[in-house]
């Protein structure tokens, strides 16, 4: 440690250099950096410490503030996005205004990305010098407090959305649950059993679905989509587009008498819930346990909508209840909420995109989700696993990693396909006593009870062949292969190419982000990862938060997840939302813009630039006026003001010029 006195009687700066173990100290000469920092004008104390973010590290700052009469703090450590709050609090605990602090990233932007210690140290010196120059100009600021509306919006009614909504509602908050399908339940409602416990999915899901419907604190809007989001943490204004169901939800009692009364005697339209494996009528209920227990009319297939000449036998069947209303139109509801939980889920990878597996070409190549419906007792075959022609398959091949772990499609692992493939292998064997082959690249079973389930399936006699399947075809080369589907695969354990004839092929597709994830992301002002999953604030420490305060993530919209993980994350998202709401207020960063009235020439350049209409022109004084409550602190107006009479707290011109000069002082000296 070196000590010096502030030479000019100005602010006394304390500089703290973090080793971050070897993360920084391994690439930056922290001792030399500390010695250098001590020579900078204004620096009263410069120290280095192994872990500045630890308790002793923070106490070090507080003690120095008292002992050395420091009035500015600079910490050179990791990214401010990670620990700025920590050190601002430490500064405040030492008795200073928390904004008398500046953080320098010498880890993410320096030690971790460079390979030359000399250069990395020089860069760190430049960055620390810039911070010291800048922090001198810092001013005490106060965070603005905004009250928080206690209502919460949950987008998506899959298991994650359901769990988040129930947790919040049980916590006493009013929840709006918005789902775009006619029923809640999501993917889980389509499953028969869940791995590894073989719990009946419906038995554990439908009570929760009913609880959502019955909960006095939940407003459930199915067949609805969020169309607009405005406002900010604590005060979001949301518009929800409610599509017409042509059924009055209040009047329909779910007796379903209208369905067989439909003018279509035979159901002839592919049933979405059963992935087209069965047919439905234009008036239908998605599945027996659907919530709400209310029918829906599909205007695309209903004769009344196509010709206007239907006899309306459904209306007759409904009788006095009068729940059917062909005149319903789309309308928009406006709600105000304080926080939002996004649980918009995923879409399964389209197996037809892998042309050599024959999905959509050979009728007996199925996707795993179709098999989930086939094995389901309430599915199209009543739980019988049969081929499209009604035969029971004798040999079944299950191909893992379809569209996953593949440079041509998704490079990431879908996390669930090993387990659901093994589960389906077990269920198919149980129902049909068929020979079942699993073709895998790796078997990944890291969850609780997963490996045991895998071992059990092995013991049941399910075959596992390690190797990526090259092709599924119906080209027989031997009599044995006649009339079968042939799976051609390199068995990498046996070291040979094998051809395995089967009756049924099950493709286990990976998980894709929802096709409209980008539009949803824009609407809620959050980010997506490269793959298209919603981006969490921090992969380890803020896995359910987003970069937008008040918006949280639950379930597979953040990345592939199984049911336990989705539920756990939904609970976490609900807890974060609760802790936000129960605080009663939220502290906003004070980085707003303000007008130096005496210098404003009233040119109005700034007024149309503000996207939040926070700037008004005051006719009486002929000057611009900024409404702090509306200003979000982007600084667009500050950069535009021709007379320099708008400034931004914490990013004012003097501070940024000082930073520019500080960062370049080395460059000037060299030239």
């Amino acid at each position: 440690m070196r000590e010096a006195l502030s030479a000019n009687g100005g602010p006394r700066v304390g500089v703290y250099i973090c080793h971050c173990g070897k993360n920084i100290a391994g690439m930056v000469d922290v001792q030399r950096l500390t010695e250098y920092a001590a020579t900078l004008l204004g620096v009263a104390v410069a120290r280095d410490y192994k872990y500045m973010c630890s308790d002793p590290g923070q106490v070090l700052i507080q003690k120095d503030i008292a002992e050395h009469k420091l009035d500015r703090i600079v910490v050179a450590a990791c990214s401010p996005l990670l620990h700025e709050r920590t050190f601002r609090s430490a500064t405040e605990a030492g008795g200073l205004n928390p904004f008398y602090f500046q953080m320098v990233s010498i880890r993410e932007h320096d030690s971790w990305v460079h390979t030359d210690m000399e250069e990395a140290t020089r860069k760190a010196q430049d960055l620390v010098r810039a911070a010291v120059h800048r922090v001198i100009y810092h001013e005490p600021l106060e965070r603005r407090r905004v009250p928080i509306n206690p209502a919460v919006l949950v987008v998506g009614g899959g298991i994650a959305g359901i769990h988040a909504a129930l947790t919040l509602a049980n916590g006493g908050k009013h929840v709006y649950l918005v789902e775009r399908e006619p029923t809640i339940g999501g993917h889980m409602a389509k499953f028969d059993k869940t791995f590894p416990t073989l719990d009946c999915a419906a038995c554990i899901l439908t009570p929760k679905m009913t609880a959502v419907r019955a909960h006095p604190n939940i407003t459930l809007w199915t067949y609805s989509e969020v169309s607009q989001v405005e406002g900010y943490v604590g005060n979001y204004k949301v518009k929800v587009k409610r599509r017409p169901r042509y059924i009055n939800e209040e009047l329909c009692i779910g007796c379903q008498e209208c369905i067989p009364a439909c003018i279509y005697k035979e159901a002839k339209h592919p049933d979405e819930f059963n992935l087209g494996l069965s047919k439905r009528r234009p008036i239908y209920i998605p599945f027996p346990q659907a919530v709400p227990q209310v029918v829906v009319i599909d205007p695309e297939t209903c004769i009344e909508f196509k010709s206007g000449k239907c006899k309306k036998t459904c209306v007759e069947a409904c009788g006095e209840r009068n729940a059917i209303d062909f005149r319903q139109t789309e309308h928009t509801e406006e709600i105000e909420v304080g926080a939002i939980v996004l649980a918009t889920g995923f879409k399964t990878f389209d197996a037809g995109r892998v042309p050599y597996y024959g999905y959509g070409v050979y009728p007996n190549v199925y996707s795993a989700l179709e098999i989930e419906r086939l094995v389901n007792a309430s599915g199209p075959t009543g739980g019988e696993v049969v081929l499209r022609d009604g035969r029971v398959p004798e040999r079944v091949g299950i191909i893992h990693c379809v569209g996953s772990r593949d440079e041509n499609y998704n490079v990431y692992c879908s996390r669930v396909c090993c387990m659901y493939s093994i589960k389906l292998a077990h269920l198919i064997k149980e129902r049909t006593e068929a020979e079942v082959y699993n073709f895998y690249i790796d078997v990944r079973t890291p969850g609780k009870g997963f490996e045991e389930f895998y071992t059990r399936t092995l013991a049941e006699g399910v075959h596992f062949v390690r190797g990526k399947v090259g092709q599924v075809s119906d080209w027989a080369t031997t009599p044995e292969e006649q009339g079968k589907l042939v799976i051609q695969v390199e068995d990498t354990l046996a070291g040979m190419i094998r051809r395995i004839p089967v009756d049924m092929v099950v493709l286990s597709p990976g998980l894709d982000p929802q096709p409209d994830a980008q539009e949803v992301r824009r609407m809620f002002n959050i980010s997506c990862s490269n793959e298209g999953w919603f981006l969490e604030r921090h992969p380890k420490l803020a896995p359910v938060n987003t970069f937008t305060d008040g918006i949280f993530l639950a379930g597979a919209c953040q990345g592939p997840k199984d049911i336990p993980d989705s539920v756990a994350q939904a609970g976490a998202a609900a807890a974060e939302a609760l802790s936000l709401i129960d605080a009663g207020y939220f502290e906003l960063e004070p980085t707003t813009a303000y007008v130096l009235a005496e210098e404003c020439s009233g040119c109005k350049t700034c007024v149309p630039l503000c996207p939040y209409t926070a700037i008004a022109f005051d006719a009486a004084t002929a000057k611009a006026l900024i409404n702090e409550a509306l200003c979000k602190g982007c600084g667009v107006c500050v950069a535009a003001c021709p007379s320099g009479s708008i400034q931004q707290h914490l990013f004012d011109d003097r501070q940024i010029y000082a930073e520019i000069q500080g960062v370049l002082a080395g460059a000037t000296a060299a030239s």
Partner: protein
Amino acid sequence: MEEQRIGTANGQEPTIVAFFCTWCTYTAADLAGTSRMKYPPNVRIIRVMCSGRVDPQFVVEAFAQGADGVLIGGCHPGDCHYVEGNYKTLRRIALLKRVLREMGVEDERLRLEWISASEGDKVARVINEMVGAVRRLGRLDLPAKRRGWDAEVLPHHGPTEAPAAAAASTGR
């Protein structure tokens, strides 16, 4: 990504000042760090809340203070955390480029890039490319350039008078 070590046209390593918006590009630079991607150490990042806060004067100041290049990073069009700050940046930088060209600052020395929070690899690539481009141009060295201009403008004056005249005509 490997660091390039090719030196500049006139010897010294160039310095590049980068203004990154906190929501997209600064976060992406953090991601490049946590992913341990490698890029040359010539860039010094200054954080702003929005690329729309980058006053053209900041860029001019950086060049005046000895920067050899300025990189501005913001969110992709349509993705701005502040609705459309990045569009304003786009216009300002296009105009500023014209001005800088007249002042003898080559186009490659000022670069505007849209880099989203998930594009850590793009941060590394853009910095690699830009450091390469600026190295090929060499250090900016505006004072030397100014001496050249003054010699053209004032051919009959002796060398001792030129610096004073230059300071008067180009001083900030």
